[in-house]
């Protein structure tokens, strides 16, 4: 994370990939108690990842990162569950899921995020689509859209902020 804050994209990606299974387990375990189903839980994982990303300037690098992450997860989970009206129905299978936290088939969540993406404005949506789903680099995206790399980076950052607001206001 220290390297990431200094701007090392590779290190940052490794960090996010390493922390995601932990987030998934935490979200499932806490979410299952309040009846957040599997695809819902993955939505929350993505929302937490966005929060970690946008709030990483608030981590004091001299402190351990564990409590910082788990506090963010807890706060986001409370918000997400409150938003979903906290319907408590917990089938026992969901609790068993906790033990094997794999990424679920993403049919449901894909539709949700696709809808959120559709609500972004155009250069932003195109850029997020290009860098995330299609996996192109910032440079290729910039060339294709005839923008400077700096402009693409700024637009990407704004788009991620906008996505976090959309998550927060709930799907739909």
């Amino acid at each position, binding site marked *: 994370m220290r390297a*990431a*804050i*200094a*701007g*090392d*994209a*590779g*290190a*940052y*990606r490794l960090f*996010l*990939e390493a922390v*995601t299974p932990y987030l998934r387990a935490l979200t499932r375990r806490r979410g299952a108690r309040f009846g957040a189903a599997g695809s819902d839980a*993955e939505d929350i*994982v*993505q929302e937490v*990842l*966005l*929060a970690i*990303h*946008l*709030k*990483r*300037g*608030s*981590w*004091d690098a001299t*402190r351990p990162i*564990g*409590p*910082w*992450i*788990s*506090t*963010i997860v807890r*706060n986001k989970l409370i918000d997400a569950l409150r938003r979903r009206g906290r319907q408590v129905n917990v089938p026992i299978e969901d609790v068993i899921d906790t033990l094997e936290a794999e*990424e679920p088939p*993403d049919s449901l969540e*894909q539709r949700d*995020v*696709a809808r959120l*993406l559709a609500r972004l404005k155009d250069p932003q949506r195109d850029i*997020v689509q290009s*860098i*995330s*789903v299609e*996996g192109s*680099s*910032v440079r290729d995206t910039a060339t294709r859209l005839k923008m400077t790399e700096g402009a693409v*980076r700024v637009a*990407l*950052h704004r788009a*991620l902020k906008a996505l*976090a607001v959309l998550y*927060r206001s709930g799907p739909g």
Partner: protein
Amino acid sequence: MKTNDLIAALAQDAPVRWRLGKAVAAAMAGGAAVAGAIFFIGIGVRPDVMQAVDTVRYLFKFVVTLTLAVTATGLILHLARPGVPLGAWRWALIAAPALLVAAVVAEMIVMPTSTWGVRWIGTNARWCMTLIPLMALGPLTLLLLALRLGAPRHPGAAGAIAGLVAAGIAATFYAAHCPDDSPLFVATWYTLATGIVVLIGYFAGKRVLRW
């Protein structure tokens, strides 16, 4: 979008331009500059300042306002950072009011009852109630902007404490102008003015510090 795709997008946005501590420090410096500009251009120090600096009452006003600014800043830095224990900062905000209460008690012991009314009402209450909130707006705005980098659990409370910081900065300048030095005056009117700023901070924080 799969979670891994999202991670790919996040990784491309790796560098952090502003960290919370640096941003809050910049906001305080900028806020003090804005409040200071209003102060020196608009109102200035009081004419008899050379005599005033020799009196305990005048200097004590700065002790209170600076204590407020420092303790509220310490608290807000802890509240805006997830997972950082508050520790002794939980009690920090008591310091400034406790100093004021002690000073009020001392004033009431030292001064005859007949002078309390004049000392309490002062000559400048309306200015105090207007200028402190006015000079606090700059620091408050900059602080709220900086705190958007943070992740406070209760956005309203964080905004209110940012209001305390801003009021502390504004009141420090205002105290240099204000001819009323009695703790009775300070405890009443400075507190009311601070309350206005805290209220603004609370409602603004509720809106802009959500995450």
